């Protein structure tokens, strides 16, 4: 049977790639150390498959057709289209894992969830920037899980937690021996293209991290519903963290690095969740 071997989170931001050489040395060092630590932890988990939960920055979808959630079930996906990331990230294509992705899709549909599906996605910086900085070699197979955190209305916090529990259940019931990890990409507070663009709210970010460390699911959903009103439009990507939180069984986590980095417009956080014992259902 498959096993969930890790659940992680990392912020992303185009400026980490686009302006890397222009960033202050201390910022580059902190980002390098944090992504290296994340990479070390992911490599230690030895995942065969990485389920990456990220938004779609108008790469695959537009407001004519905007799913709340979409699972990439194809054997292969395209790498990032952004000119600022293409030269840095060496992979033009990334292997998917159709078997696990289809199982996740079927498990979802059997459990009252109605995700969209895609046989071939383009994975933008939300997916590929953490992969680039972690320098995983070789890359595990990727199951992309796109969650709408870009345009209102968005999935509720509770639904995101449910999605996480469902992923945990799907992994635990997949018959192939696979090591599966989840990576949530995005957040914490940030504001893009709004009058508050560039603002980062460290106190709010730390309150979110504190809530995820200790709060039961219902309290966590309530806390984040309240907190995210001030987190900027990019703060909605914390929903992705809730998916990872649920996938790991809502057992709290280790937010091993955080810094408010207005120079990249991001409240930048990294975390690893505590996992359920291997034999558990994950729910």
């Amino acid at each position, binding site marked *: 049977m498959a096993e969930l071997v890790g659940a992680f989170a990392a912020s992303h931001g185009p400026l980490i790639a686009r302006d890397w050489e222009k960033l202050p040395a201390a910022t580059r060092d902190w980002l390098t150390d944090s992504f290296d630590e994340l990479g070390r932890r992911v490599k230690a988990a030895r995942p065969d498959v990485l389920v990456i939960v990220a938004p779609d920055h*108008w790469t695959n979808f537009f407001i004519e057709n905007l799913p709340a959630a979409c699972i990439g079930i194809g054997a292969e996906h395209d790498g990032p289209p952004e000119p600022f990331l293409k030269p840095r990230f060496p992979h033009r294509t990334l292997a998917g894992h159709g078997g696990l992705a289809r199982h996740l899709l079927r498990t979802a549909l059997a459990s009252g969830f109605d995700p969209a599906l895609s046989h071939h996605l383009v994975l933008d910086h939300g997916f590929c920037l953490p992969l680039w900085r972690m320098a995983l070699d070789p890359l595990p197979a990727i199951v992309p899980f796109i969650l709408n955190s870009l345009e209102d209305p968005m999935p509720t916090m509770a639904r995101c937690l449910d999605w996480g529990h469902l992923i945990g259940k799907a992994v635990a019931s997949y018959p192939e021996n696979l090591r599966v990890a989840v990576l949530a990409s995005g957040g914490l507070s940030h504001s893009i*293209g709004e*009058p508050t663009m560039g603002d980062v709210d460290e106190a709010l970010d730390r309150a979110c991290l504190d809530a995820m460390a200790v709060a039961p699911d219902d309290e966590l959903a309530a806390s984040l519903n309240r907190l995210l009103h001030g987190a900027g439009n990019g703060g909605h990507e914390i929903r992705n963290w809730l998916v990872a939180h649920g996938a790991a069984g809502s057992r709290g986590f280790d937010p091993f690095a955080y810094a408010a980095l207005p120079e990249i417009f991001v409240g930048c956080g990294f975390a690893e969740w505590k996992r359920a014992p291997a034999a558990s259902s994950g729910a």
Partner: protein
Amino acid sequence: MKLGSASVTHMNDTTATIEPDNVALVDYWLSRMMFDLSRNPAEIAAWRQDRRPILDRYKLRPEIRAAVLADDIAVLVRHVNAYLLRFYFGLCGMSEPELLARLHALKEHHHG
């Protein structure tokens, strides 16, 4: 609430208030125009030279068309997704510091 045989617990999110959303404020044709431009780099030069022929393809309301021609960010920011807006002004050749300055000038309004 449990559904089927799933061991997944589905929560009713009683704390998620259903607020009046901003979908009605999103201007589809403005969004479409910005999105198309972002997907068609070959048109950027033409766009920068004269926006009118490209704008003619879209059913823009007069006030939205005027706002596009005037780079009136105070109007545009209310009618298009903010990520798309940032990308659009980059395509127009606006520097990020200038975009930030223009957006920040709206802050008082935004909070008021």
